[in-house]
């Protein structure tokens, strides 16, 4: 069982390499089978996972370069477990829904390689391994956008690559510096996260390192003002690219904050709550407004992603278990919901080869099932209670309320502005009379599309009504994280701000 993570990482890799000899005709079946097996393996990991244990599980550590303390070091806790499962699920759904005629084989193999990187990032406990997977994930996405994208695909792909790459280089410098300090303090090299956690950094050093890591993560999230690569990437990427990008790749940034910044730089994190929160608020309000101004459906969803990621950022910097658990949950629900919304936009794009809302209107009359599923996802996106979208948004905001009621109230406008752009999208595309001749004979969802979408609808409702199975393990690990931060914090300000929950205290 201890090798389950290695299996999860390397199975798609091997399957991808073997896939090179599979014929074009049977590649779809092959891809779906591999992704399904991978998904089932990840579910198996969940069943074997001990929800009561807040620490890392299925840990595997093999020294790779002992002289420099680099090791193959993997493990999962409640925070990363479900992100991994979501990554495997969305890959499977993405492959099922694939509707590409050109170079299908290359696409499927690329997706499998991308899966390797995604799983790898979220289970790595060694900074170097983490960095390798982090950068490696760029390559398949660069290829997906560059090869199957729209008209300006090269510009979009290069922008995506260079922008995020530049950010992560600065993060790499930060990582090397942490390792250097570690070597100075203990006398030996190590890139293991667990070793780094035990390192108490003086506050001035934390400050610099915080911003170095911040740049790497913030560009990935993407935080305002580093977000402009995202609309291009989404605008040009094929449907599956957008699904994976929105559902999983963006989460690497927010996950990075939880995994690196908070436990390693608790004092600096508390110190910089205000500037980070201001950026998050700009993301929430400003991009929600930009989303409203869009003419293209896909761009609305793309900007809405940025807006929702702002709420996740608020939750992370809430410095209490309510907010951080909420933000981790929100990462999952945003993954499912925005993934589904991109799939849904893809459905109409396949039929009409346009995504402009002005080209539609009255779709609810001709495509009732499509309208229904879109409606459910819309409601999840605007955070309706009893859908998955509510739980995370509510908890993130509730948590940040402890830090600043005023900023939370501003961030809470997310529920208003979100309704504004989503309902206006829905009205323009689905309501009203059918005006365009071309829309009168549109076919409703076919079996393949339903297979991809119905599981997502089921998840959105199930986890909206009963989030406990995943919220509880998340919350356990988050509580441990918060109490660790509290213990490690040096400044009185940080000690006061980081709130250890009463239940944790009682347990101690």
């Amino acid at each position, binding site marked *: 069982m201890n090798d389950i993570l290695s299996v999860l990482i390397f199975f798609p890799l091997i399957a991808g390499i073997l896939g090179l000899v599979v014929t074009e005709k049977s590649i779809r079946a092959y891809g779906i089978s591999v992704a399904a097996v991978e998904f089932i393996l990840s579910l198996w990991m969940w069943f074997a996972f001990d929800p009561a244990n807040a620490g890392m599980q299925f840990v595997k550590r093999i020294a790779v370069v002992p002289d420099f303390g680099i090791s193959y070091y993997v493990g999962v806790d409640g925070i990363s477990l479900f992100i991994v499962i979501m990554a495997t699920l969305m890959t499977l759904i993405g492959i099922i829904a694939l509707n590409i005629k050109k170079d299908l084989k290359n696409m499927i193999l690329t997706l499998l390689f991308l899966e390797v990187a995604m799983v790898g990032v979220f289970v790595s406990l060694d900074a170097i391994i983490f960095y390798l997977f982090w950068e490696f994930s760029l390559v398949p996405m660069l290829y997906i956008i560059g090869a199957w994208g729209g008209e300006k695909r090269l510009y979009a792909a290069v*922008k995506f690559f260079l922008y995020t790459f530049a950010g992560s280089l600065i993060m790499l410098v930060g990582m090397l510096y942490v390792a250097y300090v570690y070597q100075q303090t203990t006398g030996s090299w190590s890139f293991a996260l667990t070793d780094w956690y035990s390192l108490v950094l003086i506050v001035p050093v934390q400050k610099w390192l915080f911003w170095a890591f911040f740049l790497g993560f913030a560009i990935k999230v993407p935080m305002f003002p580093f977000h402009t690569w995202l609309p291009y990437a989404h605008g040009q990427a094929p449907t599956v690219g957008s699904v994976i990008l929105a559902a999983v790749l963006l989460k690497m940034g927010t996950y990075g904050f939880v995994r690196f910044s908070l436990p390693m730089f608790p004092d600096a994190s508390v110190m910089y709550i205000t500037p980070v929160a201001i950026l998050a608020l700009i993301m929430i309000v400003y991009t929600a407004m930009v989303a409203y101004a869009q003419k293209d459906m896909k761009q609305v969803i793309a900007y809405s992603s940025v807006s929702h990621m702002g709420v996740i950022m608020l939750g992370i910097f809430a410095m209490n278990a309510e907010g951080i658990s909420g933000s981790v949950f929100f990462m999952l629900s945003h993954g499912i919901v925005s993934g589904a919304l991109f799939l849904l936009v893809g459905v109409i794009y396949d039929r009409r080869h346009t995504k402009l809302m002005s080209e539609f209107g009255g779709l*609810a*009359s001709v495509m009732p099932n499509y309208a229904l599923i879109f409606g459910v996802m819309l409601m999840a996106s605007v955070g309706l209670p009893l859908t998955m979208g509510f739980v995370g948004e509510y908890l993130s905001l*509730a948590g940040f309320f402890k830090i600043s009621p005023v900023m939370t109230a501003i961030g809470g406008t997310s529920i208003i502005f979100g309704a504004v752009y989503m*309902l206006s999208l829905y009205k323009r595309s689905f309501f009203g009379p059918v005006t365009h001749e071309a829309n009168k004979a549109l076919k409703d969802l076919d079996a393949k599309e339903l297979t991809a979408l119905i599981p997502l609808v089921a998840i959105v409702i199930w986890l909206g009504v009963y989030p406990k199975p995943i919220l*509880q393990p998340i*919350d356990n690990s988050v*509580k441990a994280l918060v109490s660790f931060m509290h213990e490690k914090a040096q400044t009185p300000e940080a000690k006061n701000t980081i709130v250890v929950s009463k239940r944790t205290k009682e347990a101690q």
Partner: protein
Amino acid sequence: MENYVYIALFAPLAGSLFAALFSQRPKALVTGVVTSTLLFISFVASVILLNHVHHEGAVHVTLMDWISAGDMSIPFGFNIDQVTAVMMTVVTLVSTVVHVYSNGYMDHDKSFNRFFSYLSAFVFSMMVLVMSDNFLGLFIGWEGVGVCSWLLIGFWYHKADVTRDVNPSISPSWAANEAFIMNRIADLGMLVGIFLIYWNIGSLQYADVFAAVPSMNHGMLVTIGIFLFIGAMGKSAQFPLHTWLADAMEGPTPVSALIHAATMVTAGVYLVIRANPLYSAIPEVSYFIAVLGTFVAIFAASMALVNRDLKRIIAYSTLSQLGYMFAAAGLGAYWVALFHLAAHAFFKALLFLGAGNVMHAMDDELDIFKMGGLKKAMRWTYLYMGLASLALAGIWPLAGFFSKDTILEAAFNEHTYGIWLVLWFTAGLTAFYSFRQVFLTFAGDERYKPLGFHPHEVQKYVLWALSPLAILAVIFGWFKEPFMEFVTQFLPAYEMSEHTEHNVVILTVVTTAIALGGIIFAWMRYYKGLKRDEKVEQSLPYRILLNQYYIPILYERVFSKPYAALSKVFWEDVDQQVVDATVDGIASVIQESGDSSRKIQTGNLSDYLKLMSGGALVLVALVLFAAMQN
């Protein structure tokens, strides 16, 4: 008893899901029958619970955990106390009638099945709202009814947008979005209230929260009270968040009866009643609620005076009556507010459904100036609407007389004579506009004839289905004493002072007088037929009222349009021209500097030597400089 709680709660949901199975099929009568039956079952369970609560006290059940993170833990818990039992009974009773009625009303609609699915889903949400034992559970229902209301207002989504002159609501889908977004604004206030409660009390359970109220800081209580009331203002369409309610009349008429008159819009009143320990502790906020309610009562009534749209008139009257309820609750007479809420639910639903009959007869024509003399063709509907209007006007011995009179007595009792005077005057306006509508529709000359309408009475069973509401509109007031005894087991009792008791007869006479005066005035002007007065219709006050004080246009100019314009500026000018241009600018600086330094690579050896010696000189200078520093 636990089982009855679940039956009452989940029967509507089961009905909704059942109907949803048929949502894309052609009309199947079975969906209407099954959902109506399940609603009736839910009603029976509610009555049993009402009886149980009356004799044995509240029932509390916890279904399962919902959200649990950090120290926050919120279950799906339901508490059936006196207030909830009354709300459940009212909601399920009116819903059952509306369901049965809709079988006839929606008979020819191609989305018959979908309609029942939405309608039952609404009832389920409403039940969650009133049954929950904590604030977040209430919020589930709160948002749930919002979505169902969105779906049902926009039920005829295929209609295109038109200008305000043609239809002040623009289109069903427009009105639906307006309602949802405006409610969301208020919901943010409510959410902030919930956060405040959580971080100050550490729980969202009603029992914990209200137990903690006496020991809390007064300023904090005021803040919480204000934010929760902002939430209530949205759902109950109080000024300035009122415009959506009149536009919501774009929905099918049974929806207007159920959601936008009898149940959902009273959710705000329910919240204030529910949080009575909180609002009792903050009299200044309560007084504000009473004043705002009073203002809305007369403000909405004034708009009803001149309107020609059958449904909008009733919508404004709903708004006005909600104002009365808030006035009562704000004055501390919580049980009176609840009493008026229930009475209003019965006669207002009846009024709306009667209006639905008229619309059916008139091929969906809503302009009462085009009607008149319908009493010949529609005797029963005339009777029903007449009764409902009498009840609304507060004429003895109908339901509205007792409930409205008690509100006025309470206003007198609190020595808030200003509130009393305004509410008293509004009672006269109410009687006038109600009977203006009744007479213009049913009495006088038959103006519809030249327009080619052939009105007819609705099906018999529909008329029968309305009879429970008609009976209740008449007799409900007679149960004022037992009602009071029952709900004040839970709610604070409200005693009238001796001074008030002394003056009760005078008060009653004065109130009845103005109501009768309103009716008589309407009778004089409209019973014989419509005599239009161009001069009045062109006058400024008339036009202001007809255009809803120009508030919708104001909102459009001040909020909607600038928001859209600003969004466009943010996207085109800021995001593309500044933020993204900076990124591309940095990229091109790098590219150009690379491009220009490429020219160094000339391939000429002497160029390289020159550069190398230059570089060496710089290095030497640096070393010297560093040495000097030491």
